[in-house]
């Protein structure tokens, strides 16, 4: 069994936020803050960049709208043009709604599956799940885990560091 991470609990969201700053300032990069809900200001505290989900969703939405509009245009003007109610073959006004619906649909797919992709979900097995402490994050735990893969990781030093910034219940998580 090799070491996966060290994980420590903090008292409340405020304490976690402070601790996150300390961890970042200490130069750790392979770490994460676990909480039962997203904590306001945590991205800044951890120094994370803005999520690219928006661009994925936006791109997909544009794709959806394009597909929608071009499919309708192609069908009514080229694939099988039929005179319907004496209206022009290219009745763009009528295409707006389906174009919009596909815009939203693809955008939503982009947002959701983009998020899953960026978060590498689903990932049902993860070494961190060996932690007993992690389950507290389901409820009212505010945790920081520092992974062994971090260049600065040293079991003893990191354990001491976590304790120094207020971490309790420090647990060594062993992966396989």
């Amino acid at each position, binding site marked *: 069994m090799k070491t996966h991470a060290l994980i420590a609990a903090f008292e409340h969201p405020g304490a976690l936020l402070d601790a996150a700053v300390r961890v970042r300032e200490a130069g750790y990069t392979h770490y994460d803050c676990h909480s039962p809900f997203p904590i306001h200001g945590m991205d800044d505290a951890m120094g994370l960049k803005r999520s690219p989900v928006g661009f994925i969703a936006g791109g997909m939405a544009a794709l959806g709208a394009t597909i929608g509009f071009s499919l309708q245009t192609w069908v009514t003007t080229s694939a*099988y043009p*039929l*005179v319907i109610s004496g209206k022009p073959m290219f009745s763009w006004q009528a295409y707006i709604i389906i174009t919009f619906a596909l815009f939203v649909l693809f955008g939503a797919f982009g947002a959701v599956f983009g998020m899953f992709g960026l978060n590498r979900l*689903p*990932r*049902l*097995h993860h070494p961190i*799940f*060996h*932690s*007993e402490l*992690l*389950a507290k994050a389901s409820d009212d735990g505010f945790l920081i885990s520092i992974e062994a893969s971090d260049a600065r990781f040293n079991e003893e030093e990191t354990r001491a560091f976590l304790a120094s910034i207020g971490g309790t219940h420090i647990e060594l998580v062993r992966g*396989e």
Partner: protein
Amino acid sequence: MAQIFPEWVNKVPGRIALSGGILVIFVIAGIWYYGSPEYTDVGYQPVQPVPYSHKLHAGDLGIDCRYCHTGVEVSAVAMVPPTQTCMNCHTLIKTDSPKLAPVRESWEKGTPVRWVRIHKVPDYAYFDHSAHLRVGVGCESCHGNIAAMEEVELAKPLSMGWCLDCHRNPDAHLRPLDEVTAMGWTPPANQAERAAAIKAQFNIKPPVTCSGCHR
């Protein structure tokens, strides 16, 4: 909290997605191929009560289609010939061929020969042979080279999309009227010009809207 799933499970979602994707592609391709009339209908060749050879009669002997299918230029249906037509010749030729026994029986007893239908459009589609023949669409365009078939099989899908292909662009199928029954016909080099002339001659504007075929 303990690990619920073993590590290999992590590969499962990806594999499911991959194989699902492949499956979907296969299903679509399968329906596309196996579901199309090209597959389901083309090549339909039922066993007929009389082993009548179009190759012999229309091909080798060169009997014109219209000798038997008399309705083809004057009516919606080409008409499968009455037994009488067979007997026009077969009272003199091959009078005791065992293959012709059902025909002779039909003639003697007055019971019709029950052929199996090969070329069929749905009940709600109305095809008129005369409308096509009279403007120079050859038999072969829809039936294939019958004269080369020992036993007739369905050569074209007879689907709506297939009909529309020609209705939208009939040029390749227009012939001079005296060649409509010719089999194994190849368009001449100047087919485009000839088609234009035929179209002008008969004022050909094939309908592509619903009422062309559906009533």
